[in-house]
């Protein structure tokens, strides 16, 4: 078995293997390394932009965010995780867009036909789909602050700390907004069940 350093060395010849290496190479002017970083985070960035309200302009927002991220890479703290730093820029760009359009940041997403484990009867699938649709509607009608916290925590599956960084809020505020959002959703869901 090869010692670790030799393995690392071998890998380093090709595409960057982790964020830190990709960032180091990007900082040194290696645009191929940055391309790898963009590829790695593109889908998540689009998801974030769309869910925070960029709607059909998510593609523009994401491109702009990646360009800005590259230009500000020098200010990125290398001992910090890259993901929330990038998503913070995406959230910021999205916020600028919705503000410049003077519109509310809508949650523009569609339900997919989710995969269901075999053995379910069509009625159960329909009920489950209906329940999802109602829950999505309930999330859509949350006040924006609570909705963004809920979206980050559950739809984007970010930690509380990451959510705080992405939305530029103290962690305590993320906790309270998430809590209030969940409470409101619980009321809505309960009302539906009556």
């Amino acid at each position, binding site marked *: 078995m090869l010692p670790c350093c030799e393995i690392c060395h071998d890998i380093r010849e090709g595409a960057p293997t982790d964020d830190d290496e990709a960032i180091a190479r990007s900082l040194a002017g290696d*645009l191929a390394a940055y391309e790898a970083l963009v590829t790695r985070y593109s889908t998540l960035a689009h998801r974030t932009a769309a869910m925070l309200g960029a709607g059909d302009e998510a593609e523009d927002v994401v491109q702009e965010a990646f*360009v800005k991220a590259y230009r500000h890479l020098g200010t990125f703290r290398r001992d910090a995780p890259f993901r929330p730093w990038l998503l913070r820029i995406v959230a910021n760009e999205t916020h600028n867009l919705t503000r410049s359009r003077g519109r509310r940041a809508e949650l523009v997403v569609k339900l997919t036909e989710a995969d269901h484990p075999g053995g379910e009867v069509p009625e159960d699938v329909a009920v489950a789909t209906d329940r999802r649709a109602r829950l999505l509607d309930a999330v859509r009608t949350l006040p924006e602050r609570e909705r963004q916290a809920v979206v980050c925590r559950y739809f984007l599956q970010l930690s509380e700390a990451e959510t705080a960084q992405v939305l530029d809020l103290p962690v305590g505020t993320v906790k309270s907004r998430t809590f209030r959002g969940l409470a409101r959703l619980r009321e809505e869901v309960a009302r539906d069940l009556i």
Partner: protein
Amino acid sequence: MTSSDDLEAGLLALGESLDVPSPPPADVARAVRERLESPAGADRSPAPARRARGAPRSGARLRGRVVVSAVAVLLALFFGATPVGRAAVVEVLRFAGVELRIGGPGPLPSGVPSPLPGERRVTLEQAREQVTFAISVPSRLGRPSEVRVSDGGRVVSLFWPGVRLDQYDGALQVVFRKELGPPWPQAVNLGVSGQGWWIPARHGLTYLPRGGGEATARARPADPTLIWQRKGVGMRLEGVDDVHEAQRIARSVL
């Protein structure tokens, strides 16, 4: 009653079933790279500088001068702003083929200077044959100890001990990018060569290869620099620590 866990699990499942259309990541990466590579790179630059880049085809010299003046005025306005105003923004401005990125005191790039693309050591006479613009030698410095031609004749670098003078073609294209924080550049008068800009502190310097180029652009730390323009040729004098001496050298380019 729905328990908290049920609701949270329901939200997670809902999130996973949500469809967010996004283009293939490789396409996004390519588009971003193209934007970063385009000599434009002008996304954040103010309008006058952006126009300056759309290299005019006819009457280029005259219009070029007008545009350069406009950029100079803009720079003057910008640097003349209140300390609060200028410290807050990160701006991109261009002057004499140099793009200045002005912002907070970012970290200096590390690493040793790498040669410019295709850099070759030549004699002064060979250099004069290989480039399309007139090479100037400041009489105050005398004959350079070394001459290098880079990037297919786009840049000529003259060297004296500790001092480097880059001369480059096409002042309407960005040839060098400088990244700096305070202390801010200052306008200096260079007599017949008009106005120049003195960058008093060490800063990051990146050479932007012709046509946008490959991923060869690497920032290196640069010493205090004077930039100016002489008969449409961009000049970048690096390594002279005293602004007055730099001015005297620039003025001695005849």
